[in-house]
């Protein structure tokens, strides 16, 4: 069974009296362990798709299943729980908590799960080492470069061992060198831990790293290529 199944997913937004269709019928299956990019011009519906998959939003029509469970049928609290346990988020603008150190930002992810056992520290330190931030644990986001911040964000998403990491334009705010390093880190994590990654991008360099490239145009899957 696929990790993620989308069937005939439509999403309309209301803008005043107008109904603006963002997604017009998406069918997609994502297997566990995939490293998948969603490409497409801005306004094509990439972010909307990620929001739906990330349980932040519900489709106007169609079905989304995570591990065979239909998300639309779950109550809000349970959706929050799924986000908390099974999904990691990485944002374009990192969105770290400015008052917490790198270590604490990562730890926060576990704290939300109510984990406070002695191995929390090991886990946080290990994942920070994995993303190449050893020695920078006690820095606050303001004292880190953009690339370093995004590494913290990736560590934060991964520390809880999620089934799925959703990254919305993770490299868009970074220079190409750093962007490349970040996408390589994501790929490394995908291979090492088997975590499924779905990320949106319009950067061809970043797309090149993807094992599967889904192109969205006008709210429809225009192309679905595997390599």
């Amino acid at each position: 069974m696929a990790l993620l199944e989308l069937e005939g997913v439509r999403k309309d937004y209301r803008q005043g009296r107008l109904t603006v269709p963002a997604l017009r019928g998406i069918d997609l299956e994502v297997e566990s362990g995939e490293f998948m990019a969603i490409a497409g011009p801005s306004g094509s519906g990439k972010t909307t798709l990620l929001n739906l998959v990330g349980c932040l939003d519900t489709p106007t029509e169609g079905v989304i299943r995570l591990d065979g469970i239909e998300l639309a049928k779950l109550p809000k609290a349970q959706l929050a729980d799924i986000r908390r346990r099974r999904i990691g988020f990485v944002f374009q603008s990192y969105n770290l908590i400015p008052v917490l150190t790198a270590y604490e930002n990562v730890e926060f992810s576990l704290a939300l799960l109510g984990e406070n056992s002695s191995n929390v520290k090991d886990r946080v330190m290990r994942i920070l080492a994995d993303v190449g931030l050893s020695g920078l644990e006690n820095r606050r986001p303001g004292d880190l470069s953009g690339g370093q911040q995004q590494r913290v964000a990736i560590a934060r998403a991964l520390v809880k061992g999620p089934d799925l990491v959703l990254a919305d334009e993770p490299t868009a705010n970074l220079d190409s060198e750093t962007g490349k390093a970040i996408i390589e880190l994501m790929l490394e994590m995908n291979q090492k831990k088997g975590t499924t990654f779905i990320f949106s991008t319009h950067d061809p360099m970043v797309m090149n790293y993807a094992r599967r490239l889904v192109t969205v145009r006008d709210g429809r899957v225009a192309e679905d290529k595997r390599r």
Partner: protein
Amino acid sequence: MGYLLKLAARNLWRQKRRTALTFLAIAVGLAALIEVDCIMAGVDRDAIDNLINLETGDVRIHAQGYSAERESLPIDRTLDPDAVLTVLKDVEKIRAATPRLMFGARLNTGWEEIPVMGVGIDPERDGQVFTLAEYVDGRWPARGAAEALLGYDLARVLELAPGDTFTLVTRTRDGAFQAIDLTVAGLIRSPHPQVNSGQVYLPLDVASQALALGGAATEVVLKTQDGARVEDVSRNVRAALEDAGISGEVLTWRDAASDFLAISQSKQGFSALLIFMILVIAVVGVVNTILLGAMERVREIGMMKAMGMTTREIVLLFMLEATGIGVLGSVTGCLIGIAGNAYLVSHGIDILESYKGLDIGYPIAGVIRGAWNWPMIAEAFLLGIVVSWVASYIPARRVAAQDPIASLRQG
């Protein structure tokens, strides 16, 4: 909860200036509340002291039916002081007792006449119950002598000084005019304004004879021993009088303190006003802090929701921040309040100083001292915290209800 506390504390620290401004405003309000209450408690205490020491004693005995007509100072309901004093000898926990005779009169100097309250006192016993003697400038009148003590303000208005003579015009028990010629033996400068402005003290035997009362008094006032409950003593006195066949009314100073109800009420009113102001300060400050904080942290809130934080947790986070402000405000306010209280209790406020150059002809004891009122301080402490906590609920709800997608899209 632990990580929320840490986060709340860090956020407060991040906006030091805003946090400080808000909690200091609350602190100042709370400190003001504590100071005002301290002074009020002091005034209350002084007023009660004055009442007991100069007017009512701890417990007093009247003839049956006196209290109901008290306002008109009736002299046809009197007691035989010797009989009452004899009965009191066998009642426990009484330190001293003295008779007094209160009557209405007009003080006539030959060119002016004003209404006063005549007070017949037993020159030998009065000092054991009342502190009047401490405030006398001049001589204490002797038994049987046509001498009087005058309130300082009264003497000032009438331009009377020790050695001057005046006439007390009144009516005897039978309604006949009576004119008592008296010499001013001394002036009273007490902390009790009414004593200073409207009272004439003369020997009880002189007054009683002049009013055709044959030595009778309108009250026998007693001082209880330290630590004795006035209610217990008054109960025992009542029983003893009953056994002796004397019908009388036994009252404690508390019964007379009904006048203070007005003071207490205005005190409550003032405190309520202050509390209301603190509420407003706290509510405005806290709501403002939360809303500003939320505006700056829109994306942070969106991210937290995306990461699976529940609305409840976010509400809790903001309420913790507000409560933190309340705690800081309460601690600071109470510390300032306690420091201020310590000064007010040890030094007091010199009201004469404040009125210098403004001759109000009111030389009452110049310093008002505060009194500790720890329950009020505890209340103020809780007030700061609880108000901040409660005030934060609605804005925190609003903040937490934001749609994460919209929040994330911002910025």
